[in-house]
């Protein structure tokens, strides 16, 4: 504690931050607890505070739709996280080769992060349109039998969401890794080159392993983005066909706000919270610790 403290008015700093801190903590933890309470209540169309124990969670576990949402979460999460990380790291390594026009290329790889998932979803919906989009283009190239109807195919539509998601987020991973690669001392590379190691080998065996902290913080951010994914699904498939591309976030929205099952929606939100907390709390704990 090297920061000064004011002898004249020790209460002033506290008073200044009090309103926003109190409001924020009530917003975060107060509403969280309230949602928790709704999830063990009998609430349906209107909130009710009749306690029913874990009935909503039992119903959630029995719900076919929620099970689909969880399965999709696993599949989408693996593809989205794996795809964005792999592509992002690859782009960072490629850009790290002292290429001319690096700034322009970086701008191109990263611009999707600046636009809304609703815009991304709208654009990809047109490109993935089964009869007019990319299918038509490939057929025009002479592959008459080519068929690409994933967007309307209940078994494949979730892959479309992952494709668009990776497109949007890979640049973010690239930006983080590129910044970290730039922080590595050049002499390490030179020493390895003197020893006769090839460039791919240097990256694979020396540079990337030394970026472990960045790897974990990026993985954490991308994972929590995956779990919170909502907009992209709404714009691209609206959870369809049927509910084939539902994710927990869209399940929660539909259940609580369009189907009027407040208790069930609150329970699914609590499940999301628990999942994210399991990933984020250990990370934040170690981050805050290591800095002291």
């Amino acid at each position, binding site marked *: 504690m090297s920061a000064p403290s004011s002898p004249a008015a020790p209460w002033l700093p506290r008073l200044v931050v009090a309103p926003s801190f109190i409001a*924020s903590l009530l917003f975060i933890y107060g*509403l969280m607890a309230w949602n928790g309470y709704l999830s063990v209540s009998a609430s349906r169309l209107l909130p009710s505070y009749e306690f029913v124990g874990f009935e909503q969670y039992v119903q959630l576990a029995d719900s076919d739709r929620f099970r689909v949402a969880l399965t999709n979460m696993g599949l989408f999460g693996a593809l989205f996280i794996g795809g964005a990380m792999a592509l992002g790291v690859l782009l960072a390594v490629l850009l790290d080769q002292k290429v001319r026009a690096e700034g322009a290329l970086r701008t191109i790889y990263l611009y999707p992060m600046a636009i809304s998932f609703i815009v991304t979803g709208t*654009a990809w919906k047109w*490109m993935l349109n089964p009869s007019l989009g990319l299918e*038509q283009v490939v057929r025009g190239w002479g592959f008459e039998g080519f068929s690409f109807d994933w967007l309307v195919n209940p078994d494949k539509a979730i892959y479309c969401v992952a494709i668009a998601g990776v497109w949007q987020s890979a640049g973010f991973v690239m930006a983080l890794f590129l910044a970290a690669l730039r922080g590595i001392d050049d002499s390490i590379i030179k020493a390895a080159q003197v020893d006769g190691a090839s460039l791919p080998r240097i990256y694979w065996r020396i540079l990337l392993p030394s970026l472990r902290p960045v790897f974990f913080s990026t993985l954490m951010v991308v994972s929590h983005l995956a779990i919170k994914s909502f907009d992209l699904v709404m714009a691209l498939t609206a959870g369809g066909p049927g509910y084939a591309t539902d994710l927990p976030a869209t399940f929660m929205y539909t259940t609580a706000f369009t189907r009027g099952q407040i208790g069930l929606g609150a329970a699914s939100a609590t499940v999301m*919270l628990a999942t994210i907390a399991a990933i984020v709390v250990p990370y934040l704990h170690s981050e805050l610790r290591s800095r002291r």
Partner: protein
Amino acid sequence: MNRLTLHRLILWTALLLFSAYFLLPLYVMVATSLKDAEQMRTTGLLGLPDSPTLAAWAKAWSSACTGVDCSGLQPFFWNSVQMVVPAVLVSTALGALNGYVLTKWRFRGSETLFALLLFGVFMPMQVVLLPMSQVLGWLGIASSIWGLILMHVLAGIPSTTLFFRNYYLGLPDELIKAAMLDGASFWQIFRRIVLPLSTPILVVTLIWQFTAIWNDFLYGVVFSGADSKPITVGLNNLANTSSVVKEYNVDMAAALIAALPTLFVYIVAGKYFVRGLTAGAVKG
């Protein structure tokens, strides 16, 4: 060809192929938005428009149907502007003050409070939606732009506080101490010393908050009423309004209208945008 040129060739092929992959959707959006129905049929997905027209843009802006209402994206765009400006300014200002106190006027428990606040950056907002809609009802601002502003400010404080706190950690404490010895007050130090040094982080935070709030869909779709829907909700409704003939050219023009403000900021101030992204992820 020697080895080095071969390497460079492979490298550049890869870099350009990836550029094409990232630019393709943008190209398709722009090209499609400049076509009319006739050219949509004749030129297909990837073709350039033969005779570019802004008709689809005009329709998307002022006469396309979102549900039963047919006044285009225009009203949604202005709703978003009215929501974004106060929400960005208030959340940034509060973040700056919080960061200042958390680093230069620490008090007992302030680090713990910060740690508690930090979880708000990552928590799934689904968990506050249901109670918050009730709170907004009690406050009498449900379904209004004010309700959205409040939601965005509360949701933004953890990130803005984090940004300013991390930045102010780097300002030497001696600077503050010296000013205090000269008799400067809490507010004088903030205004005369800290704020003038804050330009980079102010820009980063303003851009970050602008992008996040302009692009938000979740709060917009849950908390807005008939005449307070933001642009993302307008775009989504427009693109999902079923009509006899799907007008993808109008959809693409609408998508570009929704994307232009944040794309513009990104192109003008990309450096700061990237710093915001990294600041949000790596907190060392």
